[in-house]
């Protein structure tokens, strides 16, 4: 018995892989829920009800999914080119900080200000990843470690800013930045809920990234660089240029996540505004098999787990960390499932 590489991954297997991975992860997590003395089926039922049971909970879930779409796209774009951007969390905060900063002082009408702020957030994220990408290309410094360490640096910097120059004097000592001007807030998608048009921006971004990856020279170069860097270079693709382009795009997407979250939900920046959106984005990207369309679906799944777990925790007493366990298990089971799409077992 041995593994043999498939020439093409059949579509039904590619679609089946994330479903199988999710089932396996839920099955493994069921053991942990049972250990808490709770019936896993009942617990999962509570989760579904908590995330999808009412109009309000669905909008909450979609609000949670919005930043995950952006960070998922950021990871997908980078991982396709084997640029290991683990700094989504830092880029998220960079985008959020710059948006709140400029958005508080900018004097402009909303139709002009919002695009400016979104672009500023993208630029901040892109620049933050351009550094590690440059260090890799120029000095051969592994970008995994540098992007990871930058996450800590950026969050500390955010802390510094919101306790110093950007402190909100009206927040009663709560460490929070000044809010963006109310004319820049993204309009609600459904009135009287937190769901905002950022979701549509996210879906549009996914479509755009798909188009860029599938239909442009840059997209083809990205894929070639990821599949076989040496062959790509031999074919005349400039690896430094391609990787830098990927870094700018990936960083911009993660920065946009922070920007949209500020304009759509929080108005100001806090160091606790992200429950790990950057890291969860990696899981989203893997569950989507790095495909932009899959990212939207995977983001909705991960958001369902997180929002549902909070409700389930309130109802059954199972610690809400079970959501993080399920999401992490999904990542591990997904990479195993993907193995079956690229290899087949031969006797």
């Amino acid at each position, binding site marked *: 018995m041995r593994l043999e590489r498939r020439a093409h991954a059949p579509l039904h297997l590619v679609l089946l892989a994330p479903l199988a991975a999710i089932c396996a992860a839920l099955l493994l997590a069921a053991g*942990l829920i049972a*250990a*808490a003395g709770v019936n896993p089926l009942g617990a999962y039922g509570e989760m579904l009800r908590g995330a999808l049971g009412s109009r309000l909970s669905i909008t909450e879930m979609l609000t949670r999914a919005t930043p995950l779409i952006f960070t998922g796209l950021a990871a997908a774009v980078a*991982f396709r080119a084997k640029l*290991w951007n*683990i700094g989504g969390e830092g880029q998220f905060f960079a985008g959020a900080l710059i948006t709140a900063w400029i958005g508080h002082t900018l004097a402009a009408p909303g139709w002009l200000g919002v695009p400016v702020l979104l672009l500023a957030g993208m630029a901040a994220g892109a620049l933050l990843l351009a550094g590690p990408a440059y*260090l890799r290309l120029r*000095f*051969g*410094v*592994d970008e*995994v*470690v*540098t992007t*990871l*360490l*930058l*996450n*800590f*640096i950026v969050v*500390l*910097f955010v*802390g*510094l800013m919101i*306790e*110093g120059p950007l402190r909100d004097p009206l927040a009663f000592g709560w460490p929070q930045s000044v809010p963006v001007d109310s004319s820049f807030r993204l309009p609600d998608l459904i009135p009287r809920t937190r769901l905002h048009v950022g979701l549509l921006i996210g879906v549009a971004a996914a479509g755009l990234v798909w188009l860029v990856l599938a239909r442009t020279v840059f997209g083809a170069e990205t894929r070639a660089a990821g599949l076989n860097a040496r062959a790509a270079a031999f074919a005349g693709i400039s690896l430094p240029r391609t990787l830098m382009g990927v870094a700018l795009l990936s960083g911009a997407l993660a920065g946009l996540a922070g920007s949209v979250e500020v304009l759509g939900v929080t108005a100001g920046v806090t160091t606790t505004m992200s429950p790990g959106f950057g*890291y969860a984005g*990696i*899981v989203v990207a*893997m569950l989507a098999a790095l495909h932009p369309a899959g990212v939207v679906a995977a983001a909705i799944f991960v958001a369902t787990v997180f929002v549902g777990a909070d409700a389930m925790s309130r109802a059954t007493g*199972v*610690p809400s*960390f*079970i959501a*993080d*366990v399920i*999401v*992490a*298990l999904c*990542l*591990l089971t997904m*990479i*195993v499932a993907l*193995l079956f799409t690229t290899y087949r077992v031969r006797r």
Partner: protein
Amino acid sequence: MTEAMDLLLNTSLWAAVLRIATPLIFGVLGALLCERAGVLNLGIEGIMTMGAMTGWLAVFLGAPLWVGLLVAALCGAAMGLVHAILTVPLGLSQHVSGLGITLFASALAYYLYRLIVEVGDLPPTIEPFRALEIPLLSDLPLLGPVLFSQAMPTYIALFAVAVMAYVLARTPLGLAIRMTGENPHAVEAQGLNPFRIRIGAVVAGSALMAVGGSFLTMVAFDSFFPGMVQGRGWICIALVVFASWRPGKALLGALLFAFFDAYQLRLQTVVEGVPYQLFLMAPYILSIVALILVARRAEVPAALMTPYRRGER
């Protein structure tokens, strides 16, 4: 300025250096062992969290401190085994698998902690390892308090550096491990099994990482809380590169890093008008600078991050 200099002459600073360095020494040795065999283990951050929680939990539930260390090591080894299975026989991406292990191990540690331990207003505590005054030597001026009044795990860490250096450089086992990291095909040709060597190295390395994590809850503090590893695992990954994959240099790197960490903590109290976040950032910035400095002459194990498959070149 003189106050900043005075801090350097304080023995408590130098004793703290060794204490802060200990979890890093364990972590960096573990990461080094995995990478010398050719497997990058980004699970380190989660494995350290797992070790911190399980070691503490065992003692909290009534086990002696030593059993706590053992429990931490075994739980770390179990996580390492998952990473090893995914990356060695299955040959999956070491980056993605490692990150998955980190996410999984920390989430599982937090989940089990919340499930088993009743947390009130204050996290429950244990009786941690106490400093072990070595007779006579601990009475030496300067050297005594710094070198000979540490907790037992610190001495074990220093001993482990010597053992690791000896095993890697001077024993057939070490040669086999290093060869697996450089050229697994040659290992196979020698009649050894590169799969087994890699799995063994990752499992043992992960156990070391977990012991490093357990130092945080069983010596440095006496309780566990989410987020307490704070990137120490990632810093260990950086230190391995800084140390050119050599145990002796790894010890040096960990001590250097711990010195800056201990010094910035004390500087915060004497330097005024500088936000404390800048001091806290310094260790992370320093790690990046160190990586840039050594990147040019890094002697990376040739087969690092390359999965080995029989009959494939």
